[in-house]
């Protein structure tokens, strides 16, 4: 390999990266309607990612008590009946080493964004048919939001 | 509401009857193994079975499927999860590269073998002509089809 090649590649590569337009806003934006059913997940996620209050986190921590029967959240703590959820937000589903996931979860391709977590907790078996998670749906949207805020917080990540 | 049978399961979807099967399967039913490649039935990436016959789902409206059974790549393995012999042959021959076209290739190949268990080279060419593989794995596809048919396999590519 010649040095010329390395630089050429790099410069071609960087050129495109640096030459990106400064992202113009729309010249014209016709909003016909808002999405019919803005999923609660989005709202929940938006709130959850917007610096949740310590009260919300505390509420989530309390609500997580049920979950902690199966799930550890402390860094490095062993898996229980369910996998350790330390730093789960943002991770791909079914990938924690040393835990035997269902095929359904392992192959779901889901990235655990706050929104994904929300819809999963709202109905695990509906969201991922075949999951071996035993817990039933957590119907209370506010509670789900709190649990996710807790999982995202420094207390659990 | 359009009533469907997909991979043996009853489904109902609320869509424009003109919507191609491809988008109903991918977006409404959440099964993404069937791929979008060209939108005009030229590449075969979207191939599914309609009552066992291969169709290009990008160009077949969902209304056509009412009362018929749709089979997608997700539905050809056995109920216990055992892969179809064509899928197994695909792994044996290490067919896929990028893999994007392979759902369609496999659906066309399984339909071919269901209809013609012992195809000749010319019949394989004819049946598979509608499926493009941009990674050019045609020799391995042919080899895998022959292996799945129980024919002696002569490698098209020899190393």
């Amino acid at each position, binding site marked *: 390999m010649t040095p010329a090649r390395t630089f050429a590649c790099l410069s071609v590569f960087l050129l495109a990266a640096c030459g990106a337009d400064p992202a113009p806003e729309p010249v014209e934006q016709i909003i*016909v309607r808002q999405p019919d059913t803005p999923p609660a997940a*989005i709202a929940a996620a938006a709130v959850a990612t917007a610096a949740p209050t310590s009260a919300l986190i505390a509420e989530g921590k309390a609500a997580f008590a049920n979950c902690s029967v199966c799930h550890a959240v402390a860094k490095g703590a062993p898996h229980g009946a369910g996998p350790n959820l330390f730093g789960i937000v943002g991770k791909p589903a079914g990938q924690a080493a040393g835990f035997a996931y269902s095929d359904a979860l392992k192959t779901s391709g889901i990235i655990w964004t706050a929104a994904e977590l929300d819809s999963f907790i709202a109905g695990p078996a509906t969201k991922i048919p075949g999951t071996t998670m035993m817990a039933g749906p957590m119907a209370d949207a506010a509670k789900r939001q709190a649990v996710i805020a807790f999982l995202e917080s420094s207390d659990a990540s | 509401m359009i009533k469907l049978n997909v991979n043996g399961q009853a489904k109902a979807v609320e869509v424009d009857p003109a919507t191609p099967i491809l988008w109903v399967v991918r977006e409404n039913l959440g099964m993404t193994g069937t791929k979008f490649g060209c939108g*005009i039935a030229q590449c075969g990436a979207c191939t599914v079975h309609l009552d066992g016959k291969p169709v290009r789902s990008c160009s077949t409206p969902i209304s056509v499927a009412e009362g018929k059974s749709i089979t997608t790549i997700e539905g050809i393995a056995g109920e216990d999860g055992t892969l179809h012999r064509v899928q197994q042959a695909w792994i044996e021959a290490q067919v*896929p590269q*990028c*893999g994007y076209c392979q759902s369609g290739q496999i659906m066309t190949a399984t339909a071919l073998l269901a209809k013609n268990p012992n195809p000749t080279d010319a019949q394989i060419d*004819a049946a598979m002509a509608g499926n*493009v593989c941009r990674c050019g*794995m045609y020799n391995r596809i042919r080899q895998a089809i022959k292996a799945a048919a129980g024919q002696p396999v002569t490698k098209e590519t020899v*190393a």
Partner: protein
Amino acid sequence: MSKTETGSPEKKGKWTRRAFIGAGVVAGSALVVGVAVRQGNPVNRLNPLLANGKDERLLNAWVKVDADNIVTAVIPHVEMGQGVYTALAQMLADEMDADWNRVRILEAPADMQYVSDSIARDFLAPDLEVPALFEPTVAGGILELAQAMGLQFTGGSYSVRATGQRAMRTAGAAAREMLVAAAASEWQVPAGEISTANSMITHARSGSSAPFSQFALAAAEQSLPARPTLKTPDKYTIMGQPKARHDIPEKVDGSAIFGIDANVPGMKYAAVKAPPVIGATVESMDASTAKTMPGVLQILNMGDFVAVVADGYWQAQQALSSIDTKYSKTEGDGLDQEAIFARYASHLDDAGEDGGDSETEEGDVAKGFADAAVKVEAEYKVPFLAHAAMEPMNCTAWVRDGKCDVWSGHQAPVKARQAAADAAGLPFEDVTYHNAYLGGGFGRRAQGDYIAMATRIAKATGYPVKMIWSREEDTAQDFYRPSATSRFRGGLDKDGRLVSWDNIHTHLFDPKDAPTVPYYKIASHKIRKVEVPMQLRFGPWRSVDHSQHGFFIESFVDELAHAAGKDGYAFRRELLADSPRHLKVLDTAAKMSGWDTPLPDKHGRGIALVPSFGSIVAQVAEVDMSGSKPKVTKVYVAADPGFVINPDGFTAQMESAIAYGLTAALYGDITLASGKVQQSNFHDYPMLRMGEMPAIEVALINGDHQHLGGGGEPGLPPIAPAVTNAIFAATGKRIRELPLAKHDFA
């Protein structure tokens, strides 16, 4: 690699630590290195990201061992079908003596915490010795690593020869030595008496034996071996073996997730259309019908494209096609393909026999021609080519609350993340990029355009949007392999030996050595270029400039052979007198093909040899010209990439490159009319199909295990000239312009 004369000014000269870090910042990224864990080592910070649980430690950035004795290779490249996950894991696992059946693969995250310039800084810190493989050219090595890994770029057939050879093997060997040192300390025996195999550590004399996992923690406390000892090929157990690819099972049951399969709750779908003339803008749009169509949520004039967002993609596409759009005028509006070639011709005419920018010159070319007994001249042309990856460009984005998530398949995840950050107007750190399998890359997915477009749409809507290009858009808005013209003059002496060579061609992108022929013995030569505006956007296309120069050079060599009254194979043998590796490759291909055996009437054989990306490939093509169009029946391939890590994977790459190159040679032709790309889909930009695929026979040669070449691209450049040379042998018709579909063979 040691010199750094070329390239842009700020990268000239010696690579100081400061310069390097600067480069990292420019790229919006930096470097991740295979540094083992030790006290105060930055890799400790990576542990929480990649290691799970207390019984597991990263041994270095590329390998981890868990409590179940699973060795995980962290691969800083993307899988687009080239088998890179498997080949790189093989290199690491072999050096580590890992049990191949217990090796797992993880794609490195496109994450600043993982790929951070602070790690690069620490890597270059004076107290950290550099593993032997990075020497003698730390500077060059760093640059190469920065490109191949820090930027997480996959292309240029780099993965195995750069990342694999320089990093994965070193990482594996270092991890092994650290495990051995930990065991030696525990067992109180000399490290030299300990052996490793199948992820087990054994001390035969004392009868001690333990899995890697037992010493993973203690190994992590060991210091990094400054110069881990790499295996010689006779010790390889996993490298060189045709291991099954890890990614194949999920690609036969529909479960593999590609970029287009991203699933974000609440996401909507966008169809887009950009002005058909590159550089034009959207002046106005009439969306009165689209507004009333079912499922439509928003209609956006983004200035440089129009987008419709709807509940479903099909609805978006239907509505988009109802929009009447007016575009701005550009200088390219009236341009057609003939005018572009005429422009090339006039620049080449102006350059004449001595003009243009010199690329290389050796010997007295003028005298060579003056003395030549026979002079040969020829001009060749190739068209623009689109990539036509099976998976059309697509990207899913969600911009909200100062954060951005992006899902796609990209050859350079860190660059994709930067493109999204720029488009969202957010800092890099606030963007999370999720990479999926690529439904073909071929260089197209090294561009950031489609990532930026989706991000801008998502920013405007506020909710998650999956943007999918139609095939028509994918064909018309590509970054193309350039159309090009190349002119040659060659001089033969009275014995038919090649004594002078003059080539001038349009454009030079990359690799810079693509037009050169240092392996051919020619007394004098000069190679020049002219830069000519070509209207369409340039993009690296599988094998990049080699894709055209392979055809130009090997066609002209064949013409010279004919003029010299010599056989194409014999003529090349003479030219390769001082290049034994190349000669062996050529001989192997010729021998496999039975070069001297007769063929039926209207059949022909053609040979071509092109070294590229560190690998030497020769091909002999057999064509049947008895029908109305050429039928390539068989291709014999001999390839020397130094050492073949995975023979089946490498063979598959040869097959794939032949199919890709043959598609282009037979049909590939992107043309302009009134400034617009005329082709739109597979009916007018045809692909090779099953019945047209030649049988292929491949011979692999391990010619130099210390200098590995690439696999993804080198199989492509020889196929077009091998075929056109075979057509000449069969018919006497010399093809000087591609594609073959332009020519009448009836």
